[in-house]
């Protein structure tokens, strides 16, 4: 276990009591605002001190209330990417990038300055002042600054929340790079299901200061019982590979032998991608559907049916591509006579597999 957190803290109108252990990779602390996400990440960073508990990262005890241990933030060897960048306004981009690195001269790492500058596309901005950068550029500098500080772990508190959609799409891939190329453990705070779907290897869901769910991303997001962001957010994540780009503007993916068609993706052929299918975009059919406009039809067997409190029900279907979720009405469940173990066809509207829900892996 790379990160183990067990902390309790009482504030005026809010009590936090969380415990979780997560492996390497990118862990998303997920939950609505006010659920305690930022309190947890700041406790890991050493910016706030919980009243009780223990925090251990890669075998290092960062905080242990019972033994009176609380490593100050500057000795925790972390790289923290904040929501608002927090670049030093009186330093050039280059000096910002090197700030933490110069303080960690005695630590070795594989991360080279030139490579980070190139990866983040900051070469022509090095001698500029942060005030002249756009929001997305600032956030790229912030990522570089955290990465260059030779951290043992990256922390990020809603690093995309202050950006517009286009900038979000510009910054998101860099976190995938941190996760995949630099193999750094990352603790990432977010309330966006799209970010969770695209980035998370592990999800820690928080609600009202408590951990409501911990697990692998595909498992947690594919669980119909997991509806923290509202029932509309329920959806399955499938691993796929880009098979071909067709002349009519569609990209064909191969998901465990099942062909999926999406509007053209930028990823090259052979690249692994993650696809998210929202449950409300999946219809069910007992027979192989004919004469439908939908391109993506998968056959499978019903693994579970979970009726909600309202008129809806969520049906989990095991397919060759993985587990798919469908949100249909309870009336349809009855009318169709759906039972567990039954073979079924899932019809996915191809437009529903939106580009922002698809990420490179």
């Amino acid at each position: 276990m790379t990160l183990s957190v067990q902390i309790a803290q009482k504030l005026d109108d809010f009590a936090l009591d969380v415990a979780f252990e997560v492996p390497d990779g990118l862990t998303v602390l997920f939950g609505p605002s006010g659920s305690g996400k930022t309190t947890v990440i700041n406790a890991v960073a050493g910016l706030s001190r919980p009243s009780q508990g223990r925090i251990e990262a890669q075998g290092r005890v960062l905080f242990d209330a019972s033994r009176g241990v609380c490593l100050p933030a500057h000795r925790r060897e972390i790289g923290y990417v904040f929501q608002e960048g927090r670049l030093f306004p009186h330093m050039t981009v280059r000096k910002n990038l090197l700030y933490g690195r110069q303080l960690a001269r005695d630590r070795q790492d594989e991360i080279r300055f030139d490579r980070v500058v190139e990866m983040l596309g900051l070469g022509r901005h090095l001698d500029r002042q942060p005030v002249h950068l756009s929001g997305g550029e600032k956030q790229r500098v912030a990522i570089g600054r955290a990465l260059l500080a030779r951290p043992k772990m990256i922390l990020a508190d809603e690093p995309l929340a202050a950006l517009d959609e286009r900038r979000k799409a510009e910054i998101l891939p860099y976190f995938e790079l941190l996760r995949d190329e630099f193999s750094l453990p990352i603790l990432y705070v977010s309330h966006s299901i799209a970010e969770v779907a695209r980035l998370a290897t592990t999800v820690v869901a928080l609600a009202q200061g408590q951990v409501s769910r911990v697990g692998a991303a595909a498992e947690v997001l594919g669980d119909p019982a997991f509806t923290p962001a509202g029932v509309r957010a329920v959806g399955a994540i499938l691993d796929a590979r880009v098979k071909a780009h067709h002349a009519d503007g569609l990209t064909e993916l191969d998901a465990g032998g099942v062909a999926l068609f999406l509007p053209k993706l930028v990823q090259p052929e052979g690249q692994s991608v993650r696809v998210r299918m929202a449950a409300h975009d999946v219809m069910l059919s007992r027979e192989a559907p004919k004469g439908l406009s939908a391109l993506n039809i998968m056959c499978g067997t019903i693994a579970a049916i979970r009726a909600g409190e309202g008129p809806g029900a969520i049906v989990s279907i095991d397919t060759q591509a993985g587990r798919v979720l469908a949100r249909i009405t309870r009336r349809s469940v009855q009318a169709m006579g759906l039972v567990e173990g039954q073979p079924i066809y899932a019809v996915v509207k191809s437009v529903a597999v939106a580009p922002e829900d698809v990420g490179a892996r």
Partner: protein
Amino acid sequence: MNGWLGPEEWQAVMLSLKVAFWAVAGALPFGILAAYALARWQFWGREFLNIIIHLPLVLPPVVTGYLLLLSFGTQGAVGQVLQKLGIVVAFHWTGAALAAAIMAFPLFVRAVRLSLEAVDPKLEQAASTLGASGARVFLTVTLPLIAPGILAGAVLAFAKAMGEFGATITFVSNIPGQTRTLPSAVYAFLQVPGGEASAMRLVVVSIIIACGALIVSELLARRVAKRVGRL
């Protein structure tokens, strides 16, 4: 300028510059510390410290000078300790510098405190997560960001120290070449027949120094606003 000002006038101007320089240099570290404490720390007696620092601003200068004489004079408690260390401030130019420093202190602390309060503590937090200890955060982030504010405060304090009269004359008297600063000299020239011309020349010098200080201070204040504003 040497030819335009008489030797006595020139002496007063040079002494005033020396006194004001050392007053500001001495007040600088204490002023920054006091401003930092008032802006950032919560401690018992914070309001009391605030009042003590601002007292010279509202107290009649003569009262401040008399209190200085009581404590730092040859018979005063602090004065006697200093005397044993071989330091004399009573009726000495160092005493003039001390009086000027205390009178200028509230102006300086206010300026530094204002610029400190404009610094976003989140930047200091960011620096600490990047591995900077408290002292390093202060030196590499806080201090550069408030530097224009410190300079502006120092310029104001310098002008105030140049003009200090009441506390100085009460504490260290009006000894030519020793404690006769520019305002004391103007006062002295006005007391003797035919001294108006000398007084007038010193008045012109005073106005030039005061205007210069205000302009420099204003320019620096604008710079700090721009600098701290760029986030």
